């Protein structure tokens, strides 16, 4: 845990649980452990959703023997009801851990909950509408749509395409708590008055848990995979724009040959048919080879942009 100056914050305060009060996130100087709850679906054949708990405060935090496999279920459909069935029973235990802390080496420590997993899973956890809604980000209130209806909100909270501007307003735990109370009330009501977009903030059902949005992990593996696909696709799109469909086919063939023969990576049947994590590192190491494969197929300006990125 680091402070605003980037220096580690020393643990100077002991955690003292107050079970009679509502749970409140502890301060940074309180001795704590971080608990990562990870949920995702995957695996060959009939895929299964798996719920895993890990603690990053140790050596080899991602080793299988250092993680706790909590639950699994086959996911023919991955709707919210299935998510509730799987995670719901564990949330009581998680809340008890947050309230009471955990004893490590005879000393009581607070627990800081971190949510990890694919962005779609985290969205479902918060009952957020997903990547294509009006406010597509789980961490901030940035607007993802254009048009007159969204102009005022975009001015107030920023637009996702204005990538150089920092987000103007972040989501908070208080937002989620408000959503839980107001949406539960709306569900119970016979004639509910629907919330306005400014009120529901693209959350359509009561969130499963009021986690701190700033402690939702940004899914580094998924980001790596997503960004690599985008870069390769952009190169091919530039070839299509410059020379038409035939040029795009030639660029794709050249790119594929470089990846297969020079970089020696291949597509995997999972992760949406992309590259697996370790192979992304190989593509990074051989980035020049990949870019050289596009030389002659796309204009120099586009190639220069790929080199700069």
């Amino acid at each position, binding site marked *: 845990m680091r402070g605003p100056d980037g220096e580690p914050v020393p643990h100077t305060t002991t955690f003292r649980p107050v079970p009679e009060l509502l749970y409140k996130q502890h301060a940074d100087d309180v001795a704590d452990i971080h608990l990562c709850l990870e949920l995702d679906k995957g*695996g060959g054949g009939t895929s299964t959703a798996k719920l895993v708990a890990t603690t990053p405060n140790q050596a080899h935090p*991602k080793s299988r023997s250092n993680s706790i496999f909590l639950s699994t*279920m086959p996911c023919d459909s991955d709707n919210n009801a299935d998510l509730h069935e799987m995670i719901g029973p564990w949330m009581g235990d998680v809340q008890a851990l947050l309230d009471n802390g955990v004893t490590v080496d005879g000393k009581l420590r607070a627990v800081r909950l971190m949510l990890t997993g694919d962005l779609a899973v985290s969205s479902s956890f918060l009952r957020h509408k997903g990547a294509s809604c009006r406010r597509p980000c789980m961490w901030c209130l940035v607007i993802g749509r254009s048009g007159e209806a969204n102009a005022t909100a975009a001015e107030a909270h920023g637009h*996702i395409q204005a990538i150089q501007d920092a987000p103007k307003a972040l989501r908070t735990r208080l937002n989620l708590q408000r959503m839980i109370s107001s949406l539960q009330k709306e569900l119970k009501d016979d004639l509910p008055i629907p919330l306005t977009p400014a009120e529901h903030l693209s959350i359509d059902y009561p969130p499963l848990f009021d986690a701190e949005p700033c402690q939702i992990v940004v*899914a*580094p*593996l998924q980001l790596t995979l*997503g960004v690599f696909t985008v870069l390769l696709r952009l190169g091919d799109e530039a070839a299509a724009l410059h020379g038409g469909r035939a040029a795009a086919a030639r660029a794709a063939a050249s790119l594929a040959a470089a990846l297969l023969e020079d970089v020696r990576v291949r597509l995997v049947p999972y992760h949406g048919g992309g590259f697996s*994590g370790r192979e992304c590192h190989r593509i990074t190491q051989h980035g020049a080879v990949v870019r050289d494969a596009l030389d002659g197929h796309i204009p120099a300006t*586009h190639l220069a942009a790929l080199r700069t990125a």
Partner: protein
Amino acid sequence: MVRTLNWAQEIPAEGITDFFTSVQRFAPALRVGFPWFSISPKLHALTHHAPALLRRFGSLGSYAEQALESWHAFFNCARAQCTADSFLGSCAQLVRRAAVERQPLAEQSLRNVTTRRSAAAGARKSKSPADGRL
């Protein structure tokens, strides 16, 4: 950038600064070269929220979803050993094996890599002239 994103260790302050700089440069450079390029929520998260998380917690790889991917791989291999009448039954067997039977032997089977125990003292000594060891 990719290395910092996935490294499961504390990143030093200069590494965080480098990551911040390269992430800030990444998307605008693509927007200049490829005007039709649309910023996805993933890229927005990479540009704005990944550096904030890295600054606060000192590492992103330690919080990444690699453990889960490892369990997916383990389940693919262990499925043959966790046979039951139904798919749900084999899932239940796997959970039991992972959580309930955390005996030393089970612990060994959950490790990511196979480790070879060092040979007993004197076991590698040549015993006959035909052993090929001088």
